[in-house]
């Protein structure tokens, strides 16, 4: 019964989300909708790290490497082809290839923990330094001038597939971005409920045990890493489409840090949490930016410290626990005799089916 109920509930939520994405342009002002488009693109980026960190146990300090590569891949090919259709594909394929090479290097070298953090961090710095120093006419790929520190302005935005002269309106851009966010969310949700996703979680829980059961943790981690890189690259393309601009700050450490903050605030080990955290934090940052009283670094730093110390589980898991306690409180006495039921329910939540 409980399973069927939760399936129905999830279907209802998905339908609600689709309706919300569809009607937002007619409800909100253009500015608010543009802002939401940015948040949705960033939320896709948040999902990419939420997947490998929360479910694969791989904390990458350089998720922006893939985000930036995706952004640049999109921008360069969009300038060259003047058509976004192949560019979006390239923005997924190139970061995925890069993740495959880097991941092979990391996981087959059995590098973990802090060392993995150092490598992903330095890769991001390398990309930032290289791209930053590409100013001048000699740095061009086809028709696209890389522009170094100044970045690439006036990048063509998305168009109707295979019709380069029909650029998408802001409303259509929102539908695409919001739709991609929902699509990526559902894809990851589906993956995590399949055996493949369970194996990823199993490797996070206990690598030795997973390998004794016949799975190769290196391969599992590598595949998860590639998927996450591809998603981050797609987020990069969405981001460039939003601003029609890409610059080297897309690789910056502060953005890498922000992704980690979104996930910590929203809740590690969930998929909904990072989206909530991302929208919340980005909204706060945008709000602070519009007035002069407080420095955004100050607020972000304070928020991160407070969450790590006082609310380490994050918003979504804490809220879920509260709701669960309220729902189950009346039944708890009856089930005291039969402890099996609540503990197995809790276990299925811990396995990370969110």
């Amino acid at each position, binding site marked *: 019964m409980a399973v069927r109920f939760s399936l129905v509930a999830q279907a209802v939520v998905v339908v609600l989300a689709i309706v919300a994405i569809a009607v937002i342009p007619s409800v909100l002002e253009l500015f608010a909708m543009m802002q939401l488009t940015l948040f949705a693109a960033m939320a896709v980026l948040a999902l990419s790290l939420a997947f490998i960190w929360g479910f694969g146990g791989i904390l990458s300090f350089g998720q922006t490497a893939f985000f930036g590569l995706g952004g640049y891949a999109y921008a360069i090919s969009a300038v060259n082809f003047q058509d976004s259709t192949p560019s979006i594909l390239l923005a997924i394929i190139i970061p995925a290839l890069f993740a495959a090479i880097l991941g092979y290097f990391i996981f087959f070298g059995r590098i973990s923990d802090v*060392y993995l953090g150092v490598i992903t961090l330095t890769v991001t710095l390398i990309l930032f330094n290289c791209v930053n120093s590409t100013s001048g006419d000699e740095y061009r790929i086809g028709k696209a001038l890389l522009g170094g520190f100044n970045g690439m302005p006036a990048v063509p935005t998305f168009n109707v597939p295979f019709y380069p002269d029909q650029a998408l309106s802001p409303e259509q851009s929102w539908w695409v971005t919001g739709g991609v966010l929902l699509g990526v969310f559902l894809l990851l949700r589906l993956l995590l409920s399949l055996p493949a996703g369970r194996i990823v979680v199993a490797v996070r829980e206990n690598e030795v045990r997973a390998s004794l059961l016949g799975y190769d943790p290196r391969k599992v981690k590598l595949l998860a890493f590639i998927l996450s890189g591809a998603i981050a690259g797609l987020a990069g393309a969405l981001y460039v489409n939003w601003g029609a601009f890409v610059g080297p700050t897309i690789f910056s450490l502060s953005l890498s840090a922000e992704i980690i903050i979104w996930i910590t605030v929203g809740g590690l080990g969930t998929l909904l949490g990072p989206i909530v955290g991302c929208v919340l934090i980005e909204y706060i940052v945008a709000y602070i930016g519009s007035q002069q009283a407080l420095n955004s670094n100050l607020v972000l730093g304070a928020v991160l410290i407070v969450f790590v110390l006082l609310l380490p589980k994050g918003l979504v898991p804490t809220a879920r626990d509260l709701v669960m306690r309220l729902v189950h409180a009346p039944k708890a006495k009856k089930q005291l005799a039969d402890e099996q039921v609540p503990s197995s329910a809790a276990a299925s939540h811990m396995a990370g089916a969110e």
Partner: protein
Amino acid sequence: MAIYLIVALDVLNGISSLFLLCLGLAIIFGMMKIINLAHGEFIMLGAYATVISANAGVNIWIAMLIVAPLFVGLVGLVIERCLIRFLYGRLVDSMLATWGLSLLIIGIITTIYGNTQQGVPTPLGGFSIGSYQSSYYTLFLAGMAIGMMVLVYGVMRYTRLGLIARATMQNPAMAATLGVNPTRVYMSTFVVGAAVTGLAGGLVAPVSGITPGMGGAYVAKAFMTVVGGGAAMLSGTMSAASLFGAVNQVGAYFTTPVYGEVLVFTTAIVLIRLLPQGISGRFFKGNL
């Protein structure tokens, strides 16, 4: 001939400043397995303490060598009591919280002093080799690096304090049974690490532009050097700093400063791939 001497001086400068900048982080990481991502901001605080006291009329040497480490040591004490002590043994959480801390410190300094660049004139003058110029301050930095190395080695190896610190590092439970208070040891280690970092900040203040965001330039390099060096506090950091400092300066000499940096980062990645436990995990096992 003169050009080789100048490059050699640059290499020496690169190594000694990298070593000074990393030592505080290495002390904290080596003793407590905590990565302090606010390390760059400790450097920044040291630099600000130096600049502000020097501009207020304090002698530049006193500002660098006494005010900066004292101030940052005090800040370290407050931070350890309020934040870090809840995070021992939680590597990832400590990284997240100190990252938050670094943003917080940047925010506070920006609010107080604004996002503008400050500076103090470089003391000691210059000298020339052939047609090239160099400054005595470079030699002073190298001397300070050697001095700090000898000091840390001496304290850790020959004093009772160092013995207690090493014992706690090896086995906190056993040390506690023998009457050492690990909380106290951790606290003082963090304060010492912070003070050493503050000193480094004071020392680089005359040769760098001082802005609230300056720490970002150091933290990644320091993080990389300490992890690349491995668990041994002195030998690991020294060998990694020598490698990276030399690669950086030689690379910058043959190409551009930007590609010098890129070369260092690439070296770091290859190093960690080849020696996943850091340099001292392989070559200086059991050393300080």
